[in-house]
């Protein structure tokens, strides 16, 4: 499936960050980009729409990226959904936690379109 036909869900509580990720995804030819400003809204979106990729921040209030990942992996319709966790250099150690919760891959911010493209190539069927 080509990137332009996929639906991506970007989750981050900072709207500017979502905008940045959206811009980079557009650079990579993604067209259908959904946004959620916290874990629970992401869950709502996942219930009603078919999503092909999730890009989520780690640090969010109420429901962290890890919580969201655990939900996605335990929810039958989404359990194999490609999930990319966005994290900061200082929180790298948390990645092992995410791996144990079966994250597809992770990316450290700030990142370039090139880096994102490499990571996505590893986790998206192409």
């Amino acid at each position, binding site marked *: 499936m080509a990137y332009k036909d996929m639906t991506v869900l970007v989750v981050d509580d900072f709207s500017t960050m979502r905008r*940045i990720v959206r811009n980079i995804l557009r650079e990579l030819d993604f067209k259908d980009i959904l946004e959620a400003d916290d874990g629970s809204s992401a869950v709502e979106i996942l219930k009603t729409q078919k999503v092909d990729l999730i890009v989520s921040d780690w640090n969010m209030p109420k429901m962290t990226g890890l919580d969201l990942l655990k939900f996605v992996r335990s929810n039958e319709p989404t359990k194999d959904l490609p999930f990319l966790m966005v994290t900061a250099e*200082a929180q790298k150690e948390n990645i092992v936690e995410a791996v144990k919760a079966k994250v597809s891959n992770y990316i450290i911010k700030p990142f370039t379109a090139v880096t994102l493209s490499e990571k996505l190539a590893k986790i998206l069927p192409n």
Partner: protein
Amino acid sequence: MMVKEIVEQLRNGIIAGPDDLAGIGECINLIEALENEGIDPAAAEITKRVKELFRRIILEDSSDPDQDWAAVQRLIEGLGSQLLEGVTPPLVLTDLPAGGDAPLSIVDAADPCDRQEEGESMEIQDPELLKDFIEEAKEHLASIELNMITLEADPGDVGVINDIFRPFHSIKGVAGFLNLKQIHELAHEVENYLDQARSGKLFITNTAIDVVLSAVDVLKSLLMDLERPPGSPPETSPTQLKQLRERVKLIQQGEVEIVAAPPVDKLGEILVERGVVAPEVVDAALEQSRVSGTRLGEQLVKEGVVEPREVGSALREQRQMKENAAVVRIDTQKLDNLVDMVGELVIAQSMVINNPTIEMIKDQKLQKDSAQLRRITTELQRISMSMRMVPIKNTFQKMIRLVRDLSKKSGKEVTLEMKGEETEIDRNMVEEIYEPLVHMIRNALDHGIEMPAERVKAGKEARGTITLTAQQKGGNIVIEIQDDGRGLDAAKIREKAVKVGLVAPSDTIEEGALYQLIFEPGFSTKEVVTEVSGRGVGMDVVKKSIDRLRGKIDIATTAGKGSVFTFKLPLTMAIIDGMVIRVGKERYIVPTVALTESLRPLRESYVTVQGQGELINVRNCLMPLIRLHEIFGVEPRYRDPWDALVLVVGENNGAFCLLADEIVGRQEVVIKSLGESMRQVVGVSGGAILGDGKVALIVDVKGVVGLHEGNRK
């Protein structure tokens, strides 16, 4: 899962390659499952190495990923041999991760902002982006300032520290993308400090608060610089920035000083004095803050009449004041002695005034003066007792945080409501009730309140409520812990009681007594040890604490609707509110905290039952009759209950009727210990001097009930 099965799964190579993070995750989980099963040291050594190698592969920290990958595969194979065939594989040198267990060092080799091109191109493509960021960053900074006020009042509140950490983290993140070097670095430094603070590695000190607030100011000015046309001189000087970063580095190293929580009264006065705000404005805000339940400081900032900065610094001034304030420190022993003496004074005064010889003197002036004397001593007693009383508010407030933490941990949604927190309690008791209250709340949250899904299914709101109430009733303080959870399961309790041997299968137990069984040591109906409340071990400790305070616990519950636990405690430890009764020629005092009611039974209410002795039927409830004259060995005036009086008391094992001749009156008495030698006497918990100077023994209801039960058997 058995070790064999786990190893088989491992061996079947479920990982597609070093990029298959999900597969690696699965593998790590399996390995940890193995470790939990318990494996021999040789195998444990292998699993340790495998985990280390995986960590490196995941974090891309390995010098030769292919080699590490091959090593992992070899080690897993070897693990299989070790565990299933008992053959220890020769560990090749290359299998050993170089450097042992050296922690991952975070090397900020290249400053992400040095990728000049990236940042700039991002702006060019989306010029709105920068504007967006500045907007949002300003909002974040405003929220940080507000939260700092809360943090100053409670520097230990992890929730608030988190609420301050996140915006700094977010600002740092975006600044990185946008190549805003100064903002990125500063936010990063503060974020580091806050990260340590939220995990408890560093304290929030006075200095730290100042530094964080300064950082907020500098970030604000850096943002303003961004808004200026390019080329114009920046608002923020490089030296200012440098100094601030030095200060941040200092607080990252930690200080010894710990902030003490300041009280928030008179904040308005300080602000008015400083000329920051008008008195009427403060009064209006105070009204509003009471209505909306916010603090005065927050309210004033919300109204925009005062800068958060001002509030923060006023709070600090207040703290200084408190430390220098005119307080007298007093030895609690002296205070206790004073209170005792005043109690004696009340009695002595009463003895003089009620002296028959004095009473016979019909002098009007004497009457007036006596009345005055009585008024003064009563007031004196009230004041001296009030010196020992503190509002229970402090203790209740600590529960808010507890409920918040517990509900987060358990995944349940719970609100804590409080009523009557101004109710005062003897300071000697405040320490004692803290632990029992904590246990009760833990239990209410863990065993009482259901998970949101379950609640909704039962037609309740997803959010559960625990209500803490305190009030003074009679001479006692009554504290209620109510929850709208699932209530106590009588059948389950009975079942467990039989299992544990507390109750024989054939015993009939009255409902009230059944619930009281949960206070027996070793009783717990939860098989699973939960992190939230442990094994329910708290309950017998709770009972002991309440007993020690000469109080009582009552339980009321409705299956499916919730439970109410009531602590009835005497107002102070030295004085009890008692019912003075007469048995024969002697007078005794029964603490009202133990008393439910008193009545004269009808002849028909008196029953004897084979094997159970004498019983009184009180509203269709049969209660054992305890003859106080037998227990205390005195000759009573009446032997038949229908001529005399019966006092209904509640104890662990149910309700009992104490037989007495008559009730003389209700009185507050100072408890006097009977001395070491008498301490062993069961059934009596002390003595008191009555108004006429004679001594009355204070009945230890629990002991008397115990004696009665013992005699019966």
